[in-house]
Structures are given as C-alpha cells and as structure tokens.
C-alpha cells in the first residue's frame, strides 16, 4: 500500500506521528505537512520501540549483571536516597532499588509474553473461524454463538479473572499470566474476525474460490498474511494491558509473590514509607508507566504503518 504524495483531507494521521525528516527537524505539529512518499517511520513507533528495547535490555542485562545481588540485605544501607553507590536508592532492607527495577523487568515481560501468547494463539484462530462461518449461509448461527461467548468473556475484566484464579488456585505469577491471557482473547478474536471478513470480500479471494481453492487453504494463504499486521498491533496493545494488570495484581498481593522482584510489589511495599521516602514509589512507578507507554506507542505506530489510511485511535 503506497501512501499518496499529497496530503488529502481524509489523511489526517495523528499529529504526534511525524515523518523522519520532521522528527529530526522539530518536535511541533507544523512539520506534519511535509509528508512524502516512502514508508513512514513515525515518532510514535520510534519512541515506543525505544522504550520497549530499554525494558527488554534491562531484563536481559539483569541475567548477566546487576549492580548488587537482588536479595542481598544490607542493614547499614537501608532506606537511602539516590547516591553514586545506589543510583535509585535502597529499600527498607538495604536492597538496591536499581537492581530490583532491572530484575523486576523480567516478570513484567514474562507475564506479557505468556499472556499475549495465550490470547493470540487462541483468539486469532477463533476470530478467523468465526468469520469463515459467517460467510456461509448455514454457518451464521455458529458465528453468532462464538461472538456471544466472546461478549460474555468480555464481562470478566483481566483483573477480575485474575482475582478469581488467585482465589481458586494460590496467588502467583502463573495463574496471573493465564488469567490475563484468557481475558485478552476476545480482543484478538474481534480483530481477527473483522480483518478476515474484509479479506474474504476482496477480489482475490473470490478468484481463489472460483478456482476451487479450499477454504482452509484460503485462510492460510490469503487471510493470515493480510490480518497479521492488525494482530500484531493488537498484541502490542494487549501487552500494555498485561503490564498494567501484572503490576496491579502484584500490588494487591495476588500476583508475583516474594521474594521474586516485581514492580507492582515494590510499589506496594513503598506504601508505608511514602511520607519519608517517596523515592521508593517513584522508580517502580516510572518504569511501569514507561513500559505501558512504550507498548501503547509502538502499537499506535505500527497501526499507522500497516494501514496508513487508518487513523490511530484510542485503543
């Protein structure tokens, strides 16, 4: 899909997205006019990808090196503010906050990857199959049953489902990941369904049908590649939601359990020192926000890239 050279009135992409030339020139909106042909790389995507890379790098580096041992207790150095020895300060046991932020990134990413993986691998096929049935006169009812079930699942927000899982099983990272993943299934199913319906209406699918291609083959050859972009965008958005959900659950004590470092629990433990050491709440909070911002921006940027005509919407 080639973007047109001149800017049509309909093409009002998000003004936060700037083209590469504009991004280097100035950061204000006036430059949105200078859009030229060629694949657009926008500011949303660059900033989002940068933040995601930062979080991933923190987690990866933490496997090889951290400033201190995550569980090393140092009573002499408890509740310190930022210093050269401890750039982000220390907590009530004298543990290094920077180390905890680095190791905590692992859980955040693990939960995101597993939850999004579950939702993507289950939700996408459900959406495609539902759309395929919707196109058959005898199969419309199957499509509506699947979509109604989807709607019912939507009545269970990620946090609620995770709390139920924590009640039935014991609270922990595992049940949290699965619950957040299941709660994200309807999102993928809807995206895959509407994308598939669009693809099934195209000329080339009709041509394939006319030349007696079987439906499963059409799904794999034509539908999958064409909805992949939308699914990836959904994955990025769902990742942001799962970061929030994990942090929230761990904050409630229903997610990652001690002694595994997690940003949500760091934030929770900082609560009683708010009046004396607000810094303890600052760092985990900032990194949760950066991770969510990163995946949201990446999703927005990818959406613009995969479909330049489509405007970046809220969710």
């Amino acid at each position, binding site marked *: 899909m080639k973007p047109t050279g001149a800017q049509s009135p309909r093409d009002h992409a998000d*003004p936060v997205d700037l083209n590469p030339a504009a991004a280097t020139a100035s950061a204000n909106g006036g430059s949105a006019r200078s859009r030229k042909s060629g694949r657009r790389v926008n500011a949303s995507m660059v900033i989002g990808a940068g933040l995601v890379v930062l979080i991933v790098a923190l987690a990866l580096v933490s496997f090889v090196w951290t400033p201190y041992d995550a569980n090393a207790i140092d009573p002499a150095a408890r509740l310190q503010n930022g210093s050269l020895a401890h750039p982000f300060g220390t907590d009530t046991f004298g543990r290094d906050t920077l180390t905890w932020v680095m190791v905590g990134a692992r859980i955040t990413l693990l939960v995101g990857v597993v939850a999004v993986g579950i939702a993507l691998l289950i939700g996408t096929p459900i959406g495609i199959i539902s759309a395929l049935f919707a196109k058959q006169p005898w199969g419309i009812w199957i499509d509506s049953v699947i979509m109604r079930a989807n709607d019912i699942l939507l009545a*269970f927000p990620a946090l609620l489902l995770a*709390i139920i899982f924590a*009640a039935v099983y014991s609270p922990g990272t595992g049940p949290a990941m699965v619950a957040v993943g299941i709660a994200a299934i309807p999102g993928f199913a809807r995206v895959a369904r509407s994308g598939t319906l669009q693809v099934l209406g195209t000329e080339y699918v009709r041509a394939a049908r006319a030349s007696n291609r079987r439906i499963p083959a059409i799904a794999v050859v034509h539908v999958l590649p064409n909805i992949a972009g939308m699914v990836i965008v959904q994955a990025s958005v769902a990742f942001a939601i799962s970061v929030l959900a994990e942090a929230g659950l761990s904050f409630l004590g229903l997610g990652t359990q001690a002694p595994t470092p997690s940003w949500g629990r760091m934030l929770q433990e900082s609560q009683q020192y708010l009046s004396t050491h607000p810094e303890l709440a600052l760092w985990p909070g900032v990194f949760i926000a950066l991770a969510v911002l990163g995946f949201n921006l990446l999703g927005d940027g990818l959406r613009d890239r995969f479909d330049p005509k489509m405007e970046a919407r809220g969710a």
Partner: protein
Amino acid sequence: MLTYAINRAVQFALSLLVASVAVFALMSLLPGNAAQVALGTNATPEAVAALEAQYGLDRPPLIRYFDWMGGMLTGDFGTSYVTGAEITPVIVGSVQVTAILVVAAIAVSIVIAVPLGTFAALEQRNWIGVTISGLSQVGIAIPNFLAAIILVIVFSLTLGWFPSQGWMAPIEGLGGFLLRLVLPVVSLALVQAAILTRYVRSAVLDVMREDYIRTARAKGLTRTKALFVHGLRNAAIPVITVAGVQLATLLVGAVIIEQIFVLPGIGSELVRAVANRDLVAVQGIVMALVLLVLIINLIVDILVPIVDPRIRNAA
C-alpha cells in the same frame, strides 16, 4: 426499537446464565472445594466432611448450582463458611461505595475529556492539539495506583489538603465525605480522562469529515459552529459506548484505589474474601460484579439507538 430492546434483554439474560454457570464451575467443581479451602490444607478429612454436610456441599453439583442461582434470583447470595455472615448485605453496602467512587470518576473524566478532545480535534495541526494528544498518551500509561500515590504524596503528605485514606458515609458528614472522596476520584478520573480524550478527539475528527458538516460550512457556518450545531450529537455515540466500557472496567479496576485509600468498596471485599479463602463470598461478589457489568452494557446498548435515530431505525 421495541423488538431491539427485547432482543437485547434476552441476550442479557442468556449472558448472565452462561456467566453464572462458568463462575460456578470454576469455583465449585475444581479439586479442593470451598470447605477444604476454608479450613486450610491441614484440616482433617472429618472436619472437611462435617463442614461440607453443614453447608450442603456433599450434594450433587447440579442441585448446588440451582440452589445458588435460585438464591441469587431472590437476592440471597448465600452465607460465608468462614465468617458465617450473610453475603448479600456485604455486597449491597460495598457496591454503594464503589458506585459513588466510579460514577464520580467517570463524570469528572467526561467533564475533562469532552472539551479537551474536541479542542484537540479542532486544533489538531496546532501545537495545542499536539500537546493534548501527547499528554493523553502519557496519561494512559500512568496506572491509576501510581497516580494515587503521587496525589497522596503531594496533596496529602506534603500539602496536607486532603486525608490520605478513609471513608465517611454522606450521612455522617457531607464535608468529610467529599473531602475523603477527592483524591480517590481524581486518581481514577485522570487516567480515564486521558483515554476518553483520545476517543472524543477521534470521534470529532470523524464527524468533521462528514458531508453534513461540509454542507453546513458551505452555508456559511464557522467550523466550531457547524460542529456544535450538527456534529456533537453524532460524536457522542462512540463516546457513550467507551464511557460505558470504562464504567464497567472501573467497577473492578477501582479495587486497587480502594485498597490504597482504605475504602470499603466491593473490590476491597473481594480481596478480603480471597485472602480469607472465603470461596462462597468470592463467588457471590464476582457474580454481583458480572451482573453489574452486564447491566451497564445493556444500558449502553439501549441508550445508543435513542441518541442515534439511524441505528434506531435500522434496528
């Protein structure tokens, strides 16, 4: 319109039925039933059997389901095995707290988001529009519990304007009630306002491209006037839908805010029930929450065609 409303009501009842079966199955059929969970893993089999017999847990699942469902239909959510207390009054009391919190938060976020989003759309090429879009993107990334912690540090611990926690019923003192409500409501509303602003902006942008706005402009109306006379009603439709979804999400999402500010809302009750391993209470509260979410969805679905005659006539 009437058939549409009846259709939606039937769908609502079916969804509720399926959801109740799902919740019951999840909570009651898994190994380690409510009695076992309530007594802990060290309980003797005799003690578990005694508690099972006392609460009728030794009956077949189908009978127990109908018993539970029948009770709920008459407003009886059962009796806790752990505390021995009736669950219905707990739910009714705590839902009121959460409802006040959540409705106030959504109202505040609408008051912030509608003007900001409209402005951002009208000024989208301007630095003001870009700033609003950028800020809303950052706002979405800030979890409400982080916002709450920052607000507590600034307005409660530092400035001392508002209490950092606690709840007072309106009848005990309206001033105290409002004073304690400010920080929790603002922490919820800020993030929701950021999300809603993006939807309002996108909805207004869509409306501004419509033919009827061009006609109004051709007749000599200014952009702003055309929007106010013809556009806003149309832009309201997606905004109502999103606000409904937000309201439903917040019912559960407020749980963390309730914990931070020690508010006796339904989320706090749910977390307490999970911590007490009180599966009957968990089951009842979850069902009450799902019921509320489905009611909100039903109201939104019926409200939208009332606002939009095109949907009304199509349906």
